């Protein structure tokens, strides 16, 4: 099976400042990866490379069987849905619905198909009530969701997102998580830049950590989050749930809230039994 995304020794520099150095990894269809690291580690640069807005100085990036060097962003959009930093400045239509339908329309889908895709994207993020609003009349958090809906409506094979949950409350984060899980279940690969490790733990399964432009770590996310001593030097900190599991010694070291709650309930019941 072809990889949804494959990077082969990718390097990039701004002037003489190295942003990425020989980064290689591959994502299979439906795989959910978190791209982690400090501010300035090269995460946003990688997102721009994958979308074709920048070209690698060395190495190559493949989206399925397409070499991104041969494809302008508007062609890559058939396979890659993206959202960048400052998402709220990427909205350009007069209503949220128009904005979300921009992508499917630009890709040339027929009107009914556009409608359906827009409907699905808005529903996935619970944005129906805001569909007729002007994007700029919404609070920044909802603008972010609108930008994300624009990427979802492409129904791409690969979603590349830069900080999709920054500034979102718990309920909105949960919406984003379920929308992404839904896309992944449908076979889309996810590459999500995030500082929000709690969100990552709930939604993603694999950790790619950049450290000063190099891929310092590529392994299952849960395992990494359960090992605080390894997180510190990478500029990461364990989310509260992982810290709780560790402190209480919960079996299986769960990092997701639901798993931790279940483990907690089981252990509590077991402990209680002899006393009751």
């Amino acid at each position, binding site marked *: 099976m072809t990889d949804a995304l494959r990077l082969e020794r990718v390097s990039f520099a*701004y*002037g003489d400042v190295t942003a990425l150095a020989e980064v290689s990894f591959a994502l299979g269809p439906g795989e959910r990866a978190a791209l982690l690291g400090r501010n300035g580690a090269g995460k946003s640069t990688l997102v721009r490379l994958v*979308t*074709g*807005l920048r070209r690698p100085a060395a190495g190559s990036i493949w989206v399925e069987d397409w070499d991104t060097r041969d494809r*302008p*962003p*508007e062609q*890559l*959009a*058939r396979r*890659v849905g*993206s959202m*960048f*930093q*400052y998402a709220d*400045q*990427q*909205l*350009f*239509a*007069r209503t949220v619905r128009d904005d979300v339908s*921009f*992508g499917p329309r*630009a*890709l040339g889908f027929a009107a009914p198909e556009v409608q359906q895709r827009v409907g699905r994207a808005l529903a996935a993020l619970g944005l129906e009530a805001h569909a007729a609003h002007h994007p*700029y009349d919404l609070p920044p958090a909802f603008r972010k969701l609108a*930008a994300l809906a*624009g*990427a979802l409506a*492409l129904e791409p094979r690969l979603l590349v997102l830069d900080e999709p949950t920054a500034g979102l409350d718990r309920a909105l984060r949960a919406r984003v998580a379920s929308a992404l899980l839904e896309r992944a279940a449908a076979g889309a690969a996810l590459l999500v830049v995030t500082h929000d490790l709690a969100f990552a733990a709930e939604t993603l399964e694999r950790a790619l950590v950049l450290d000063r432009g190099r891929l310092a770590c590529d392994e299952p996310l849960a395992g990494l989050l359960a090992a605080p001593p390894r997180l510190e030097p990478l500029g990461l900190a364990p989310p509260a749930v992982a810290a709780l599991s560790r402190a209480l010694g919960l079996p299986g070291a769960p990092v997701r809230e639901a798993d931790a709650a279940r483990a907690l309930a089981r252990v509590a019941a077991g402990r209680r039994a002899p006393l009751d």
Partner: protein
Amino acid sequence: MTRLHPFTLLALAAALVALAWLLPAPWGAAGTLAVAAVLALFSGAGLTPGASPGSTGTGMSPGWRPGLVVLRTAVVTAAPFWLFLFILHDVSTTVALGLRITTMVASVVWLVAVLAPARLVEAMVAAGWRAGTAYLFAATLSAVPVLKARAQRIVEAQRCRGLSPRGGLGPRVRALRALALPLILSALHEVDERALALESRGLVPGARRTPLAPPPDRGAERAVRWALVALCVAALVWRLA
């Protein structure tokens, strides 16, 4: 050139425009245009820093290239005027007006390229202007790079959602239309946010700003500015007489 005092740069641009209209056509305007073109060519590196984050620096290499870019921008901007003039007027009027308009365009494009708004604010504040007024003046000047950066972000977002800015005339026109309206709307919207942001940074009506690093104003430059004023006055007197 970018190290000249902002007032000197302003005076040069203003004098070129004034002389282009005052001096007899077509040679007067041809002369001012030649001067403007030479200025543009020598504008060198040091283009105004983009006022928006997200772009990754100007990264301009020193040497001729920036000058050529400035010159090209001026030519591209002036070209449509020539077309309209040619349709509306005879050849000699077209040449006379065209040279004058091109001088204006070239002078302004050059000025935008070499005059950093931040330096203008500093110079105006040092000269006793109120911070708000100086900022307004400079913001007008920096509107071009700001809009450019914003347009770039919108175009990038649109391309990543499948809109091609390339291809034949049809797609190009469509892409331009898709850009123009959101660009204007978002710029207008940003005015609200900017108002909040500037207030929060102490730019309130009547603020008396401390000049941080006022650009040095040499005596020679002041003399040049007066000479330019005198030149314009002399041209005016000569033409009226």
